[in-house]
């Protein structure tokens, strides 16, 4: 934990300032400044920023796991999507009788499927606290079971990555099925409000952005605190010399499991914050490609630095927005090229540039 740029005091302070600044500036620029002011922020931009913040949290979650414990999950999109679905289910229940069919008990897609009653796994999602608990528990329990099986049999390296890809692929196929009861192909959408606040109102969007910025900041601080303990030292050590850690008497599997579960929960929170801001969650979020993209953000930003991972997500998501508007076909090529260039010339990612500057 000694030399990673994520621990440079300047970068740390800049990161805190960035998230706090965003949380303060966005509501002012969107709600208070007149639209013609050059500093004003459109509602569209607020949503975009909110979306980037969620992706930054997702990248942070993967960096904790990959950058520090050395476990490359290529299925983190699944935990993100599950958190998103848990939030989406709450938002669906909030629609009430305002759906197209006006059914008080069933979401539209269930009425459409001729279902007569709410499946048991939808019970409780009318309650916001329950839904938030599920945002943490569903990804957490999946990671616990999956990780327990994998780490107990000492699945590591590329085998772990492949297994996690298979996991998200299997979930995607399952969620595409109408009979699963999560809206099939279309997923969950047409949300109206959250805790009684209209999701389309600018004030709600700004509030969501503020909550997201503070959540990302809090998660970043939590990860840093965690990594500064003996626990963090053990995790970093097992990334570099797993055998040595084991022969010192540490149960490597339980350490990996704790990090995996925590990381999955953070990804779930990211998904839950993402869904109300983009207005939809569908099985496409489980695509294996999505999970690979997360790893690219982390690698481009700088693996094992926390700050770099968030930076990578932000930068790539912003470039993606620009490019897909102009040249939609070019995006995947651009992403691939960026990944290649960074791996070849900046093995420590964008933050490596910073480090080099620091030493130079």
């Amino acid at each position, binding site marked *: *934990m*000694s*030399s*990673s740029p994520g621990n440079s005091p300047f970068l740390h302070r800049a990161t805190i300032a960035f998230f706090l600044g965003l949380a303060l500036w966005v509501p002012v620029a969107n709600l208070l400044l007149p639209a013609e002011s050059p500093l004003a922020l459109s509602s569209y931009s607020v949503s975009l920023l909110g979306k980037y913040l969620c992706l930054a949290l997702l990248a942070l979650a993967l960096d904790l796991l990959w950058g520090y414990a050395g476990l490359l999950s290529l299925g983190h999109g699944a935990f993100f999507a599950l958190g998103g679905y848990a939030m989406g289910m709450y938002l669906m229940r909030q629609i009430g009788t305002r759906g197209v069919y006006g059914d008080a008990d069933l979401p539209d897609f269930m009425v459409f499927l001729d279902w007569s009653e709410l499946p048991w796994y939808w019970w409780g999602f009318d309650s916001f606290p329950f839904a938030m608990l599920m945002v943490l528990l569903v990804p957490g329990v999946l990671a616990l079971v999956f990780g327990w099986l994998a780490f107990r049999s000492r699945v590591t390296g590329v085998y772990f990555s492949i297994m996690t890809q298979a996991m998200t692929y299997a979930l995607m196929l399952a969620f595409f099925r109408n009979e699963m009861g999560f809206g099939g192909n279309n997923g969950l959408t047409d949300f109206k409000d959250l805790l009684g606040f209209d999701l389309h109102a600018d004030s709600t969007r700004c509030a969501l952005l503020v909550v997201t910025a503070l959540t990302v900041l809090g998660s970043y601080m939590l990860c840093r605190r*965690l990594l500064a*303990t*003996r*626990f963090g*030292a*053990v995790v*970093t*050590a097992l990334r*570099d*010399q797993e*055998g*040595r850690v*084991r*022969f*010192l*008497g*540490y*149960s*490597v599997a*339980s*350490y990996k499991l*704790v990090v995996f579960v925590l990381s999955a929960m953070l990804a779930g929170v990211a998904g839950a914050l993402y869904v109300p801001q983009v207005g939809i969650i569908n099985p496409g979020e489980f695509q294996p490609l999505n999970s690979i993209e997360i790893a690219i953000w982390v690698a481009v930003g700088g693996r094992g630095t926390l700050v770099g991972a968030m930076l990578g997500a932000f930068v790539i998501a912003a470039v993606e927005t620009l490019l897909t508007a102009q040249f939609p076909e070019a995006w995947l090529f651009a992403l691939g090229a960026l990944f290649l260039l960074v791996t070849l010339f900046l093995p420590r990612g964008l933050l490596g540039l910073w480090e080099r500057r620091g030493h130079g």
Partner: protein
Amino acid sequence: MADIDTRHGVMLYLDAVSVSFSGYQALNELSLAVDEGELRCLIGPNGAGKTTLMDVITGKTRPDSGSVFLGQDINLLDHDEAAIARLGVGRKFQKPSVFPHQRVWDNLALALVGHRSPWQALRYKPSTADEDRVAHLAKLIGLYDLAGQAAGGLSHGQTQWLEIGMLLAQDPKLLLIDEPVAGMTQQETERTAELLQSLVPDQTVVVVEHDMAFVRSIARRVSVLHEGRVLTEGSIDAVQTDARVREVYLGDAC
């Protein structure tokens, strides 16, 4: 750490242990007893099974048959690597392994006995006694002045010492040390010999080594391994004059 029952003076006892790797018999009904407080050397040609023997004792390799006991009543075959380490068996690998990205100090601190579960590790705050212990160990292995440096920057000999220091931090009852002086300078070798000798009789030490001068300088008792079994056992002089040993080594080293 559970107390090891050494009422009969035996720290480690292996009986008829066999290990085969896809047909190749790496250990062949090997039996070995090491007394408490002993400094034992294991020698033998490459491929004799010395490292495999350490793998079996520390839980890395499961034997096909045989039994392995720590003291009178701890059956090591019932435990995994981490549990065996917590029982008081420390091991230095043939290929030195330390944590390169962490400071020398942190390497030692991480090895300090206790606080092994994730929860305990999360809540751990080093006590003054812990700090003193790490400082003491750093001095003992001659790395006190380098304690603030990343372990990845150490020389080969220093890395070997750091790993030995980490073993000591675990407070083990039994230390298994695989080829500690390989690649060390003459001076480093001598210091290592002193260090290992200072550990007994409080701790029990088993050293695998090729360097005959080194073995001669530390060992009171030597076991010669050959083709997965103990060929002979005795003082270094007795062993070196043994005709079978000379044959096995074909005149080299001895």
